[in-house]
């Protein structure tokens, strides 16, 4: 934070050409008036801006409750209010809580993943940390985190979206986003730690190659990626894992911001730990990782938010198979394809439902986002 600038009551007297002190009361009055005018102007501008910034979103929400005609209209306030557009989105969706033994592999996977999750949690709880404070706080937090993750996984498994497009698309996107958040963060941390903390042959070369590769427009390679995924059977019906694979495979290239962060952690920390006999791996997870919390959260946030807006490649990989669409592809088709007449209000409703969780998440983690982008901008 900026230091408080002391109020120095000094002005330049141009006629006299000297600096002299001004009587505090007199000066304060005129200054206050000026200040008030400036502030009033700023408030006006900010209020105007807020209106411009919020209007489209307010309109979007209002349109999603419009009952008359599903198409576009040239007014904002609906004449008939309705929840039908939202109802339409969830038509056919079901929430099943009983075991469906249709697919043995899926049952095995679910049971195994849950067992691993529970085992991991028990391990967390039983771990004996050196630090007594960590015991009470850290363990419970970790356990709750695992619990939340399990809850989410089980929730996803329980939603039966086979008959409901929107829920299906939402779930697809959620799954992609979760995987991307975890895997991309892992990749980014690996690369940025190696490039920041270690010095080895080819390090500069790697950084330069990444810089050069970044200058090629991404869409160029879309068709090749499509056929690579097809070779692996990850298009159309397999588009969801395919998209995860593609967006995670090259994610190490986005190492720059977190490398910049690692660079600011003093190297002496590593060195003293290594003198104590710690391996690089131990330094990585027991010294650097705890300090890198803000950048880890930033990377997770970015990884999670990205897939929600991915239209181009997602539609290219999943074409002709609506069960594999993500929300962006599905909703984009509703407004920009002639087959879907009168889907505009439904698009608005879908947009609202997608925007709310993302916005809440973003607002909650805004602090880390600011830290990330500021650090990234300063370092380039």
């Amino acid at each position: 934070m900026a230091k408080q600038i002391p109020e120095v009551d000094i002005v330049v007297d141009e006629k006299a050409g000297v600096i002299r002190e001004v009587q505090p009361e007199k000066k304060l009055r005129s200054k206050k008036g000026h200040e008030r005018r400036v502030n009033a102007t700023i408030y006006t501008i900010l209020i105007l801006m807020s209106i411009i910034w919020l209007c489209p979103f307010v309109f979007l929400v209002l349109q999603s409750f419009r009952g008359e005609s599903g198409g576009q209209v040239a007014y904002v306030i609906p004449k008939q209010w309705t929840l039908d557009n939202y109802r339409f989105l969830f038509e056919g969706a079901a929430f099943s809580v009983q075991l469906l033994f249709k697919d043995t592999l899926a049952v095995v996977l679910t049971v195994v993943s849950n067992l691993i999750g529970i085992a991991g949690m028990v391990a967390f709880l039983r771990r004996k940390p050196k630090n007594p404070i960590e015991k009470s706080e850290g363990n419970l937090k970790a356990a709750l985190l695992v619990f939340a993750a399990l809850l989410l996984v089980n929730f996803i498994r329980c939603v039966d979206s086979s008959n409901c497009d929107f829920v299906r698309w939402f779930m697809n996107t959620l799954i992609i986003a979760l995987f991307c958040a975890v895997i991309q963060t892992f990749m980014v941390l690996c690369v940025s730690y190696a490039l920041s903390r270690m010095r080895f042959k080819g390090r500069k070369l790697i950084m330069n190659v990444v810089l050069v590769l970044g200058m090629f427009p991404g869409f160029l390679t879309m068709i090749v990626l499509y056929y690579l995924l097809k070779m692996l059977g990850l298009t159309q019906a397999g588009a969801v894992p395919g998209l995860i694979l593609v967006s995670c495979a090259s994610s190490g290239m986005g190492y720059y911001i977190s490398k910049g962060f690692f660079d600011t952690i003093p190297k002496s920390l590593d060195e003293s730990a290594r003198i104590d006999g710690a391996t690089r791996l131990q330094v990585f997870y027991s010294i650097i990782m705890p300090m890198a919390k803000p950048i880890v959260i930033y990377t997770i946030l970015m990884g999670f938010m990205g897939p929600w807006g991915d239209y181009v490649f997602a539609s290219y990989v999943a074409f002709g198979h609506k069960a594999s669409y993500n929300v962006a592809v599905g909703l984009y088709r509703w407004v920009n394809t002639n087959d879907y007449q009168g889907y505009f209000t439904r698009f608005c409703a879908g947009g609202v439902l997608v925007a709310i969780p993302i916005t809440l998440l973003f607002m909650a983690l805004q602090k880390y986002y600011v830290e990330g982008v500021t650090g990234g901008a300063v370092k380039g």
Partner: protein
Amino acid sequence: MKKILALVLTLVFALSCAGLASADFDGEIKIWVAEATVEFTKAQVEAFKAEHPEYANMTVTVEPVGEGDAASNMLTDVEAGADIFGFAQDQLGRLVGAGALVDVLPENAEIVAATNDAGSVSAVKMGDVMYAYPMTSDNGYFLYYDKSVVTDPTSMEAILADCEAAGKSVYMEINSGWYQTAFFFGAGNTLTYSTDDTGAITAMDCNYASENGVKALKSMIKLAQSPAHVNGSSASNATNLGAIVDGTWDAAVVKEMLGENYAATKLPTIDGYQLGGFGGFKMLGVKPQDDEDKLAACDALALYLTSEAVQTARFEAVGWGPSNLNAQQSDAVKADVALSALASQLQYCIGQGQYPGEYWTLATALGDDILADKYDAYTDEQLMEVLTTFQTTAGSYITK
């Protein structure tokens, strides 16, 4: 305590909630049709299976991929595309050129030729080879209007005046190679291409660079300048509809919008000539197959889905106008407001032939230039130059 609580909660939840979504099963035959006809097509496939016990065990999946998207999706990867897919006529050339269509089984071709109207039969052919099954004959456009606003739907000038007075808009898509021909053909011009059996463009017959062409261009400029005109042809995107040049697929939307004042008729006249245009078709195509049995199944299914009974049923379900001659004679079809408006317009139209993909882009460019008011101050001579460029560029698409 907290530990145990968390543990118990997790256990309970994990055991109770291990519900499983059922895995997708890939069918042997994949069909792409417009969203509106997915359920209809599914039902018809079941009927087909009942009729043909030899195909009773075949798995058919129906995906919503509209006539507009089908071609570009097919071309992305023919192998992953649908085995049977619906598309609009303008895509036929692209699809044949890229090898995304197999020629129709000769026996089926005979049936198609005998039972469908002549325009649709010639539309599914490239040279002498038939590449698709006609599905509808309604891919043309005409005028929907609001009876309470438009008093004289026979003249564009009157329509514009009425709508302007009532504060309503007249929708007509100027920047589309499809709607644009209403002006050019109406004013007496031609633009047709010839193709060989493989879909390659061999020749063009075009006289846009003529006095009649200038006349048509000036009508378009006049329409674009009118404050009541809005460029567009999608009824559900129209926010202030007084009149719209649109097709049968939007009939339900327009009907809902206008209610009692719903009316439809042939296109009006403009500058003293009757607007013309395309009469087009929608069709079903079969993708090339390397498995003979599958090809046979596809042939049979495609023929069935475009048969008289199914075309009639399709009209009843979603209002698409049949190409089958017998189906066209049914009373319900004849009584349909939109379809009869289309029928009265078709006498001024030419059957839509084959056009290269670049033509549609070029026409959009011309239309966009008109909408951007670039030609407002042009003299006849300058307009002629524009049309000469148009014609020459259109001629450069001949691949031979």
